[in-house]
């Protein structure tokens, strides 16, 4: 049995903690907020007539397992501000609302502090983005927590109006040098496709268009393909719009249609901006405190072998992943620690 600190109580931290605790370890989850669940804690269900496989159900299961496991202790509203010691005997300095203390004799550390949404970093936002017709994809995800599927309602997803049209902009905050994210965030195609289906579910007549650069497989879903978009009656245009203008009751998008090479316009009542996965600022602190490599986009990788240092990285702290991949990655991290414990045991 070991003492293990898991920093971050999102999907990654919770999944790793559950596996480690099941193996009989004493696990401490250190969470900066007052809830477990991280970025997706208030996202809603995206089922239509059938489940669209967003994997949120798994998140609730994992969090409930954390609550039901006696080997896990959770520190809410707690920050980590110091780390010292040697493998097998580390100390973490922690701070809970101004009170400082330490967690001693730790055998392993799992860092699982996740990512930051592009919407939180976006600084070049034009004023028009405050328009009620423009929302971030994660805002729509949050609205869906209160969706009404079994109760008659004029406004089942709390938009405040009935949209006749919607436009999604893909690759926003991804695949752009200006946005310091040359990479693909891997998840936006998936959630935009699901959100589009939810809109179609409530407003069958709605006219939906997606502006895209490339379509990704989007995780463990059987793949988003053009055929699937056709099936749903979703139109797709291969470019990023050049201009967005405010109208009386909506917005006007100006774009270059690459099919014809001409500039074209499209009006919409609802514009949904996808948000790429960006590295969290805290990664810089972690890189110094735990001696980790910060890559060009700010994600972390180990410098020395995790098995030797006892400091492991789980989930999107390493780069973009969807929910299912974050869970399996974090379980893998836990399994690696358990394997290492067995090895150390046999040496003694």
């Amino acid at each position, binding site marked *: 049995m070991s003492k293990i600190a898991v920093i971050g109580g999102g999907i990654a931290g919770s999944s790793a903690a559950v596996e480690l605790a099941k193996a009989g370890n004493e696990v401490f989850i250190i969470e900066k907020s007052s809830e477990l669940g991280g970025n997706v804690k208030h996202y809603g269900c995206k089922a239509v007539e059938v489940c669209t496989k967003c994997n949120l159900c798994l998140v609730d299961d994992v969090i409930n397992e954390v609550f039901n496991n006696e080997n896990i202790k959770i520190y809410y509203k707690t920050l980590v501000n110091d780390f010292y010691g040697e493998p097998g005997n580390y100390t973490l300095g922690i701070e809970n609302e101004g009170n400082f203390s330490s967690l001693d004799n730790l055998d392993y550390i799992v860092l699982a502090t996740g990512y930051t949404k592009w919407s939180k970093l976006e600084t070049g936002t034009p004023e028009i983005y405050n328009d009620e017709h423009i929302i971030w994809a994660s805002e729509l995800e949050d609205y869906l927590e209160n969706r009404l599927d079994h109760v008659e309602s004029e406004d089942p997803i709390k938009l405040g109006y009935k949209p006749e049209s919607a436009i999604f902009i893909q690759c926003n905050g991804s695949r752009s040098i200006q946005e310091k994210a040359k990479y693909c965030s891997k998840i936006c195609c998936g959630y935009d496709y699901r959100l589009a289906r939810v809109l179609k579910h409530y407003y069958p007549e709605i006219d939906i268009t997606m502006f895209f650069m490339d379509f990704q497989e989007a995780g463990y879903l059987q793949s988003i*393909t053009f055929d699937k978009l056709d099936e749903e009656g979703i139109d797709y245009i291969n470019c990023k719009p050049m201009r967005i203008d405010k109208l009386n009751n909506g917005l006007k998008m100006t774009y270059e249609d690459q099919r014809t090479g001409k500039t074209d316009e499209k009006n919409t009542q609802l514009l949904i901006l996808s948000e790429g996965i960006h590295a969290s600022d805290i990664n810089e602190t972690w890189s110094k405190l735990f001696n980790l490599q910060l890559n060009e986009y700010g994600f972390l990788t180990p410098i020395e072998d995790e098995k030797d240092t006892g400091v492991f990285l789980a989930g999107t702290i390493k780069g973009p992943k969807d929910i299912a*991949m974050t869970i399996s990655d974090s379980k893998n991290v836990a399994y690696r620690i358990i394997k290492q414990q067995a090895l150390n045991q046999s040496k003694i």
Partner: protein
Amino acid sequence: MYDLVFIGDSIESPNMNTLSIKPELLVKSRGEIGNFNISYKNTVEDSQLNKIKTSNIIINLDTEKEKLIEDTLSFEEDLISKKDDLAKNEYILFVQDYLKTSPAIMSKFGLEKAITLNKELEKSQIYYFYRSMRFIDENDRLFEEARRNGIIFLKYEPEGLIISDDNKLTYKREDIELEFNNQIIMAPGIKANNYINRVARIFNLEMGPDGFLQPENVYLTPTYTGKRGIYVLGGSRGITASSNFEEELEFTLNEIAISLENIEPVVSDERVVDDQKCILCYTCYRVCPHGAVERDEELNSMKINQLACQGCNACISNCPANAISIVNEEEKEIKQGLHVLMRENSAQTSFDKLNQDKFSDLNVETIPCSSSIRKKELYTYLQEPENRLLILGCYEESCKHINGDKRGEQIVDEVKRTLEKLNMNKDRIAFKRISPRMAEDLDQYLSNWKEGLS
């Protein structure tokens, strides 16, 4: 006793005692996690059976690749050996996403091949036609390198790329129109392995709509099947499964390593078949989503494998002979009033988020699955005229027990029809689907339902 048997190609698995069996030679599988009994032949013609035991099984079958157009080459072929022939072409044409969007692994193969070929062939210009580039692994870097090396990438719309019967390729976009009569190298069409039906039948596994093993279900990601101890990897699972092969393999081998140390039953209460009552109709075998039911030759009765059982009770509710029961199950007393049966994990999770005081007048019960409900029991709930019953199950395709939601809904529909025939109010019983993230919806619906509104 093997730790692990591969059906299809074997993969290096350190510290495990493994065997690989070709799918066409597989004959029979019985047993459960920790103790599968497998029979197989040495050759297809052979009548002699080999019998072995294994703890776990990985089905690792490659997909079938088909040429979409005659006389073209494939991304997957050894193109370097054909470089002298290819060098005769002024243009070499790579095409992906033809007819259907190609998976990311094909973007990877295509980019790699185009880059290698570009280095070998000094005089040929490579064009690469695609609808969407898919980024896994190093594809970002490969895409950039390919463009830097002078490969020309052209995106197309379905109507913008036409390949004629004599393999002439026409490309149209904006004001560009290009025509080529050169060697075409294409991403192949991909289908499920030819033996996948055989493997599904032998292991009693479900097939997905695309002809691959195990329909998509969030509870089965990444490589689980409905049956404990049997995993599907790579091309067995779908055309895009190869994209995350390394992570999925590590996950699967870790799961297996842990199960080899210790396997616990999923449910604590045993489900047992009374061999005196069993009529061997195989209903339980057919309805069990976890492949946990088998025939016990000695007792001449069906039996339930305890380690495979995941406690959904579909066998109990569907058994026409009433032969299956839960050991030590307490007789429940059904009170008068309003009853809500909630599926654990889904509706129950949402309900737990609500202010319970508001619903203290409801008789709430947790059920492991909608397929647990028995028709006879439902009538008991409805016996008193003022009683009403609400069953809250999962959304379709999100049931941990695969099809439990559909079975539950069918039973409720049957009860409704019966009530209608008897001139009774069929709305006294209802089935609704609630996910774990629909607390607000459940709150409002339950409040209405309580008052008799819906």
